[in-house]
């Protein structure tokens, strides 16, 4: 696709793009992957501690512990976002802090804080899911598609 886009540009622009690209600082992809792996893994480790804690001290089973663990992680994220720490973790970890549920929580909470000055209804309410909204929409839609496929396979596929 990038190549197709490039062809529509005048030759001077194409030449400049190549010229500029040579001087551009590249994203350190390997370094970012390693950082994301460890920070993401660390967040999951904390999650595991929390669920073990809940199972051990409270009346939860492995099936029911998911929700309170998620809620606790989001609560911690909320505090970290409010104190302005999570965006720094995000700059360091990239996908490592964006992919776990904490990243989702951060995208909702940061938008809510950001739009507080515009009031509760049109500001916070209207903009809270500005970033997370598409995750919810496409997440629910893909779950819907997958369950249709599953249903068809079970009903008619004889699985």
């Amino acid at each position, binding site marked *: 696709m990038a190549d197709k886009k490039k062809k529509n540009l005048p030759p001077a622009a194409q030449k400049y793009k190549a010229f500029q690209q040579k001087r551009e600082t590249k994203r350190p992809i390997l370094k970012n992957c390693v950082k994301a792996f460890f920070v993401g893994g660390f967040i999951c480790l904390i999650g595991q501690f929390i669920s073990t804690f809940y199972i051990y001290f409270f009346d939860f089973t492995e099936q029911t512990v998911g929700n309170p663990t998620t809620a606790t992680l989001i609560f911690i994220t909320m505090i970290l976002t409010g104190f302005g720490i999570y965006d720094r*973790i995000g700059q360091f970890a990239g996908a490592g802090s964006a992919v776990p549920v904490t990243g989702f929580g951060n995208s909702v909470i*940061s938008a809510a804080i950001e739009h507080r000055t515009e009031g509760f209804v049109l500001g916070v309410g209207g903009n809270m899911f500005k*970033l997370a909204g598409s995750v919810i929409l496409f997440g629910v839609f893909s779950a819907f598609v997958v369950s249709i496929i599953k249903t068809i396979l079970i009903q008619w596929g004889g699985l």
Partner: protein
Amino acid sequence: MLVGHRTWIFNQKPVIISTGTVGGPFEAKGKIPEAFHILHDDMWLKQASFEKAQQMMMEEACQYAIKNSPIQKEQVTFFISGDLINQITPTSFAAKTIGVPYFGLFNACATSMESLALSALILNSNGAEYILSGSSSHNAATERQFRYPTEYGGQKPPTAQWTVTGAGCCLLAKKGTGPIVTSATIGKVVDMGMTDPFNMGGAMAPAAVDTIIAHLRERNVDISYYDLIITGDLGHIGREVSLDLLHDNGIEIKEDQFVDCGLSIYREDQPVLAGGSGSACSAVGIYGHFINLLKNGEAKRILVVATGALHSPLSVQQKSSIPCIAHAVSIEAGSDAL
């Protein structure tokens, strides 16, 4: 007076009689905290929103410039300024407080020099006695408009830049003591098909180079005529690309002659990635730091090239490329300093 196609020479020699710069907490920890006349330790400036904080900074910069000049506020003929927020409300609201006839401009980060060029032209043609000219930006207000919420934990690429929290303005007069504005070249919009809003420097470099070449050609001077060529906010990548483009065009610019405000404000260890940016970047850099070099004789002639990326969040989402502009204004040490 017009020379060539798009360069004005100011025969009346308008004088920058005073300046005012305001900065935020992050700038205070930077490389040149002494460049800021007023520094705040609070991003909010005790205001209810970042936009109001930006308005406040613009007001303070103007008030400081007037206070440090021999004139009163009532003598100022025009206030010419702009910023990056949607309908340039911080500037317009500041103009309400200042209460001076007002022109609002938008040329993204090139607003500071657009404003200075127009102010000098008005003074040169006897259209005013004193003009306040400047621009402002606020990191959080700009981030939220152009990118993501301030606290959102997205990872920025190393080409991204950091918007300066601050405001800078100068008081320009027909007569007085101080550095003089000698000429200005108005930039053309240059679009090289760059689409990455996280790489402004790379997108703006061709505009800066186009304006510098046009300026030198139309004024018929060599690059060595200027002690410093100061760009607004090209950052690491834009600066390097511009240097190479200038060399390719046969302009023998020296490495230490070509400086960037975005790279002068912050220390290397601050997390600003490719450098500072924003419409306050060139304003505080020039009016706070580089003007002092003219005053104390370290430089005699400087050419300020403020660069701006004329995109909006909407145009980026609609996959338009980023058109860019650069305006150049030459400032020289006044006769008293020579």
